[in-house]
């Protein structure tokens, strides 16, 4: 009787031991999968996020859902505030940032980042590799393989700056310059729009107010147009310089009709005005000259 029982027990023991072996193998595989997941930076969760994961996996007791939810909500709201602050101070609006870990061992980590966003009206997408090497307390960070995508079809100045910046992987210079360039373009646009509002009969744009050119049409001489060319140049060092110039388009007949001084020498006169008054005042004075000539 006991022998039979001990035989059954031995059978059960064997079955259980086999189950244990299988389960241990499964657990090992899952732990390995989890370790791989943990390499994904995005999902390195801690604090309230880890609480949330535990809740979703049924680890926490029931009734705690509101607590987990509200604590996480609070933290998310703080992060949203922080993002608003950074966006305002840095003058750059980021829409998305994805990271991929290419290499990660004890002291070296290489990530590939893809960041997209806009700076005022200028939309960009930037991809680069970030390498971090730890040496004791210090950590050295380097950017490489920078690739910038922007619609620069009407930004010839900017595109040569861009190729230089990509070559040298100068990520920070790119963003500093982008901001300044964008601000100068916005200045131009604001000034152009201001003049269009103030002198609607004289001012027009071949494209739109974001273009580089503003046309001043002489009210009496329809073929005569003064073009204010306001370009924003960017050197390869990242120096942003607005350049304003005047181009005249005057048909032969008009030159005979009106005194040459008022239109022919306009370009040179404009450059001296620029030096004395600055761009906005010089342009305004040009506009007044053109529109006031009605009365003369």
């Amino acid at each position: 009787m006991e022998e039979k029982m001990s035989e059954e027990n031995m059978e059960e023991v064997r079955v259980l031991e086999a189950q244990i072996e299988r389960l241990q193998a499964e657990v090992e595989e899952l732990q390995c999968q989890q370790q791989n997941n943990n390499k994904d930076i995005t999902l390195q969760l801690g604090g309230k996020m880890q609480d949330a994961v535990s809740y979703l996996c049924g680890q926490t007791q029931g009734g705690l859902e509101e607590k987990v939810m509200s604590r996480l909500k609070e933290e998310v709201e703080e992060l949203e505030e922080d993002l608003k602050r950074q966006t305002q101070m840095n003058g750059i609006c980021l829409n998305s940032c994805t990271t991929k870990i290419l290499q990660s061992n004890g002291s070296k980590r290489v990530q590939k980042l893809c960041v997209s966003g806009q700076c005022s009206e200028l939309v960009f997408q930037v991809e680069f590799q970030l390498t971090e090497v730890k040496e004791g307390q210090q950590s050295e960070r380097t950017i490489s393989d920078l690739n910038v995508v922007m619609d620069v079809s009407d930004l010839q100045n900017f595109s040569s700056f861009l190729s230089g910046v990509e070559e040298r992987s100068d990520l920070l210079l790119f963003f500093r310059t982008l901001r300044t360039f964008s601000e100068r373009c916005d200045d131009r646009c604001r000034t152009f729009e201001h003049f269009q509002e103030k002198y609607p009969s004289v001012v027009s744009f071949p494209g739109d107010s974001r273009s580089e050119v503003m046309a001043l049409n002489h009210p009496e001489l329809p073929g005569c147009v003064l073009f204010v060319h306001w370009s924003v140049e960017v050197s390869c060092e990242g120096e942003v310089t607005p350049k304003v110039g005047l181009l005249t388009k005057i048909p032969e007949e008009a030159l005979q009709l009106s005194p040459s001084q008022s239109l022919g020498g306009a370009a040179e006169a404009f450059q001296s005005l620029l030096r004395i008054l600055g761009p906005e005042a010089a342009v305004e004075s040009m506009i007044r000259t053109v529109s006031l000539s009605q009365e003369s």
Partner: protein
Amino acid sequence: MEGASTKGVLSHLSLLEVQARSRKSRPQQPSRVKELKAKVEALRIQRDQLRAEIETHKNLQKLRASMDKQCSQEGEEEEEKMDDDSENSQLLRLMARHTQLKDLLNAHHIIGGYNVIRTSQGKGVCASLATAYEGVYLETYNVEIVLKPRLKISRHNVPPFIPLNSLAEQSNMQADIKTFLDALSKHLNAFAGRKQQLKLVKELHKSVEVLESNVLCSILVMLLTLPGEKSTVLCTLDYTDHTRLLPTSVHFECKDKALPDAPEWKKNCSLLMETPVHKALMSMKTNGTVV
């Protein structure tokens, strides 16, 4: 008579023996089984827990990927349908947004953002200014500004040769902190870049002797060796515009007074004016004018 009692005692003894033996082995087996059953249960719980966590991570990743797509395309993307119950999907959505925000804030930091934070109950702000040159991150400087009664720089670790206060005045810090930070960042990055160029000259060009430089790295005097006769050229680079990485003037001095006017040295002069010094020296070695 004796035979029967002995037989009785012997059989009783052997019965006791058997009982004792079976008592030894039988209690072991049930408790062993119990032990094993408990272990199986524990492993099952561990496995299910891991499966649940991995599944949650997977769902989180999927949700985050679709949120990223929505944000970068600004399109009318179909929101990822969750087949979970709505409360859990709300939590998951919140979690995905959490990871997105963390990544965006990290991106702001990496691209050289000012990391502005409020300090001491909103009485001030603290900003970090990152510097980098040709992809290498260099020093980060910090500035703390008190807001009341007027904006004033209270603490900083900016080196003394950077004109902090005059920059604050010129850029009208009172009206707009951002303009001040932009101007300061320009100065700091230019300084960091010149300093890094000097470091690279010393590392990459052992044949060039650096005779003079200053803390601001706004002047650089080097001794270049000419090929052949081993005579030297004294080269002075002046960086009078402290917001720039390139010199404003280049000057050569040599025993041979005609050398600076020679065409290849005029070319070297342009090289040094237009390209960073460590790269210009590389080109000059390649074109054979220096060793």
